[in-house]
């Protein structure tokens, strides 16, 4: 331990930040958001080859000659764009909290 190459004059007490309740709460909410969304979009994505390989549901016509598989695929595209924007919005709000956490640390919060 202790080869903290990045620090020259200032040493950051990472344990102190990690012990702050605000930090723990941020990580908890951040991770549950990220993994929940990941589980949702991976499930939606993997469902496509499962449905096309083992059922004929998506082979039926939806609009004119356009079959459901194209509609489902279009849904995945819209999902990707939507989740991308959602991520950026969420991440920007997490940033604000991270800033507050660093400010709290500078004011002496979290030290044992």
């Amino acid at each position, binding site marked *: 331990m202790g080869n903290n190459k990045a620090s020259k004059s200032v040493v950051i007490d*990472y344990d102190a930040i990690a012990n702050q309740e605000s930090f723990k709460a941020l990580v908890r909410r951040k991770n549950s958001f990220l993994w929940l969304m990941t589980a949702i979009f991976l499930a939606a994505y993997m469902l496509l080859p499962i449905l096309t390989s083992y059922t004929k549901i998506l*082979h039926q016509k939806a*609009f*004119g000659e356009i*079959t459901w598989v194209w509609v489902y695929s279009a849904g995945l595209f819209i999902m990707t764009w939507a989740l991308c924007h959602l991520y950026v919005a969420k991440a920007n709000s997490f940033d604000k909290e991270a800033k507050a956490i660093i400010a709290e640390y500078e004011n002496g919060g979290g030290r044992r």
Partner: protein
Amino acid sequence: MNNGMSLTAIFFFVSIVGLTLVITWWASKRTSSASDFYTAGGGLTGWQNGLAIAGDYLSAASFLGIAGAVALFGFDGFFFSIGYLVAYLVVLYIVAEPLRNLGKFTLADMITARFDSAKVRGTAALSTITIVLFYMIAQLVGAGALIQLLLGIDYWIAVLIVGFMMTTYVLFGGMTATSWVQIIKACLLMLGTVIISFLVLKEFGFSIATMFKEMGTATDSGAAYLNPGLKYTNGIDTISMLIALVLGTAGLPHILMRFFTVKDAKTARSSVIWATWIVGIFYILTIFLGFGAAKFVGKEDIIAANAAGNMAAPLLAEALGGDILFSFVCAVAFATILAVVAGLVLSGASALSHDIYGQIIKKGKITEKEQVLAARIGSITIAVISILLALGAQTLNVAFLVSLAFCIAGSANLPVIIYTIYWKRFNTAGAITAMLTGLISALALVAVSPNIWNPVEGKAIFVGDPLIMLTNPAIISVPLGFLGGFIGTMLSKETDDKKYREVDVKANTGISVQDVSH
């Protein structure tokens, strides 16, 4: 197909080569430090980096490969578009920000931010270089075949031309030149694709419904063309391939490197929005490229030009837009290949020069000047190795090499990235076993797959029965990578909660020494 080159084609090719060389000359004056070389000094703006990410994404495999696959196999070809696009969410949600917050130039930087070990760094560099080489051989072989077809020159000359150009960009202009070549190519590629798609739509009377209706009878597959199942009939293999696409992207070194080329997380996010929209729109347009080629060029002519369908998009451009559009699209395809291989050379060089030479051999005690020199020597080394391999790999199937690269990236890199960021108990032994298990199992499973073995002579590299029936083994090798990392971790007693807390704080807050004022 034209015999020899027309004047228009020569004009477009020379313009692109000239323009990229001017950029390289301009960039060379701004490339003095290692950070300039590897990450353009972190100086790209959101839209610039977004276009460059899109450029990295939209390789020749995307443009020529997917257009051809959709043309020949209808919906089954479109699987690639969906896979590559959704993969972006994995990069975004799981990997991008922690990587940016912990790393400097390379993936190994990020993993060694937690486990400061030469073995970990060396293993990460090894897997990066392996992925880069497979991916680059694929691009170079494809490029050689394409240019051979377009210009009527020998394969080996074509590979040497591409190799020479990519080395020039990287050697003199580093990441700045590579990024700008990527940006210009992304714009040209979008322009070309939008023009062709517009012309295709015009032929169908600007009606999507009419297009689908006509495509239901336009090919010899009839209505089956509009449904999955024309190419991929083995369910497990289809699922496995889609796993490789969606998880592999998040382990591709040249994609990950793009998150170091902007100054802060906010800029990184704005670049991501740009990239997702551009890439998504492009992939939707691959439907028009593919359908148009199937209808207005025809399967027979596409296959006659190239058995894998790689010429579908250029031939469609010729059918709808004549010689000018054909020449333009060919030149764009050429620019696409150049830009992507340049990015690959750079990420390979970062692993070789920064990780192996700078950090392992010289133990980080290396001056700025030496770092840049090492980066340049590393670039030449990676370029020469890949050119030599590509010269010997002319007959290998390009799609197979690309899918192998994705499979290794998903199996060797993704598990270790996720464990490093999210698993407290993870340790040095686990990091090494995760990478090695993923890397070796992906390579070994492909070595016994139908890509290599086929009972019919000439269908694959060796004659014989494959041991597994999967053409893409991601469904086995990705879990093995995770399992290898888990077992390796549990077998070693080493734990370091303090270090994990540091990594956790850095990854989640992006805190660095500059942020703290006292």
